[in-house]
């Protein structure tokens, strides 16, 4: 191992370099499709970084994080729709297509929703926690399907991508850079949390909650805070995703989506800073490469996932870089 720079850091640097270089090259070559692909990777990675706070650091297996992903998406969609047809939002607010405002609303909404969901769910443990987070997400899913005003099962289209001051968000490359910036911010936040006192308490709550209580820290409060923060980040990613596809539908709220988010983390390596990015890259590229060959690509995804779970528990980064060491 090189002095000071671990293998994991090298690999992570390579991944980031790829993520930045490919879209630039693609734009230069006039192939915007790859930029869109990279944007997709960045957004999914951000969603997974959010989940990683709760799952990787805190050991909270939330099978309902799609709820926040979808809520963020719907905020973007609803704002865009109302801005388009001029109708005011509930409580008389005027809609806007400014992304910063939309993001703030998405983050705030997800945080507010995560508070009661987390407060109730965290009273349970183990498989009950998994199930109850799933159930809450299902609740929101069915609500979205049945509520007719915003498309119901068919979803909601965003005709023109929302705007960001100073950028032409309709173009693939500027939007990609925007998402990349947010991904970087998210990862910086993750890194800060991981190394902070809060992070220490959170990891301790995962390793041995009794020990945490025995030093006088109540695990519940720490976990709830982690859950809420995690929800907010995933919600932001959802808003970005809706703007990317210019479409939001209840499928963003489905349990398949929740499973997908967990898969992203596991594929890349749970609890590692760059794990979600590695996982998102593997997943999206796989979807693209195999999806071109066969419609049955999920079959192979299932096989690979099974293989990872059974044999390669540390995910891609675990395979390539070995175990992490805590200080």
């Amino acid at each position, binding site marked *: 191992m090189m002095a000071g720079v671990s293998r994991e850091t090298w690999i992570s640097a390579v991944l980031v370099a790829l993520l930045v270089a490919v879209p630039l090259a693609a734009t230069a070559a006039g192939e915007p499709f790859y930029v869109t692909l990279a944007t997709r990777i960045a957004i999914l990675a951000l969603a997974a970084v959010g989940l990683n706070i709760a799952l990787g650091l805190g050991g909270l297996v939330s099978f309902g994080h799609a709820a926040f992903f979808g809520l963020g998406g719907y905020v973007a969609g609803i704002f865009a729709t109302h801005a388009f047809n001029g109708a005011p939002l509930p409580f008389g607010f005027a809609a806007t297509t400014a992304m910063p405002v939309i993001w703030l609303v998405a983050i705030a909404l997800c945080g507010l929703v995560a508070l009661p969901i987390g407060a109730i769910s965290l*009273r349970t443990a183990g498989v009950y926690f998994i199930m109850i987070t799933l159930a809450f997400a299902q609740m929101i899913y069915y609500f979205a399907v049945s509520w007719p005003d915003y498309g119901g099962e068919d979803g909601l289209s965003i005709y023109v991508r929302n705007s960001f001051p100073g950028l032409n968000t309709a173009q693939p490359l500027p939007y990609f850079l925007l998402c990349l910036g947010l991904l970087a911010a998210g990862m910086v936040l993750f890194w800060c949390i991981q190394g902070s006192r809060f992070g220490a308490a959170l990891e301790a709550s995962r390793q041995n909650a009794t020990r945490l209580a025995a030093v006088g820290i109540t695990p519940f409060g720490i976990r709830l805070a982690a859950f809420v923060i995690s929800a907010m980040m995933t919600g932001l990613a959802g808003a970005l995703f809706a703007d990317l596809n210019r479409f939001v539908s209840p499928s963003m709220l489905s349990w398949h989506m929740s499973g997908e988010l*967990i898969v992203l983390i596991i594929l890349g390596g749970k609890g590692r800073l760059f794990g979600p990015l590695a996982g998102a890259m593997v997943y999206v590229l796989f979807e693209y490469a195999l999806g071109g060959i066969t419609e049955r690509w999920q079959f192979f995804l299932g096989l690979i996932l099974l293989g990872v779970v059974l044999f390669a528990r540390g995910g891609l980064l675990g395979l390539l870089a070995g175990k992490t060491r805590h200080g």
Partner: protein
Amino acid sequence: MLFLIAAGLTLIFGVMGLINLAHGSLYMIGAFACAAVAAATGSFWIGLVASLAAAAAAGALMEVAVIRRLYERDHLDQVLATFALILILSEGMRWLFGSFPLYLDIPPVLQGAVPLPGGGQYQLYRLAIIGVGIVVAVGLYLLISRTRLGMRIRAGESDREMIAALGVDIRTLYTVVFALGAALAGLAGALVGALQSVQVGMGEPALILAFVVIVIGGIGSIKGALVGAVLVGVVDTMGRFLLPKLLALALPISQANSVGAALASMLIYIVMALILAFRPRGLFAGQA
């Protein structure tokens, strides 16, 4: 019917401590087997037997190949691995059968309706399903409390290592229990297949509901699965029926209907959240 799936799930979790998301896929396999065989032979009943056999076999195969390695793992790994199985099985079935639904007819003997006391008619077939549910419930109760297999299952629930030490062949026991749970799921799938169509993905809504049922009832408890299934069924039916009507008092009809439908589908989950808020381990946790 929900009880059948839930009972299988809770059995597996109670005895082996394993969450199995792929249970819904076993349900689907049973339905497909029944439909395919019934179409080929013209008899629903042979199809039913086939569904039991196919589901049990699939279950046993699944257990030996994959599930076995998961007992020692934490719940996250189990969730992921069985999620992977769902993907594999769903896409696999699509490959074999295509995306179009198969149809399964209600056997002539059970067609028609039965007049209810108080007016109205009830489908005979649905009554039959309830009947099957009761028979299975009684059968399971007898199995668990009266037979040696049942004793081993109960012992396995309390202390896995102990019964291994006593010489009971754990591996076979687990495979048998898993296959039993699978057969129950397959049976449910076949029965429901005649009411709705048989298609890939039919297992998933059923699976989620089954999880809600066993979480409400308490994981590992058959009694809980029964109570939970009844509760969920009643809440769901009543909710869909009553909510739009109640809302119609305050809202215009079309809005009442849509809001009512939305709320009704959420209702079960709200109930589950409420129950878990007060009893984090379900209603009958820890009992067989």
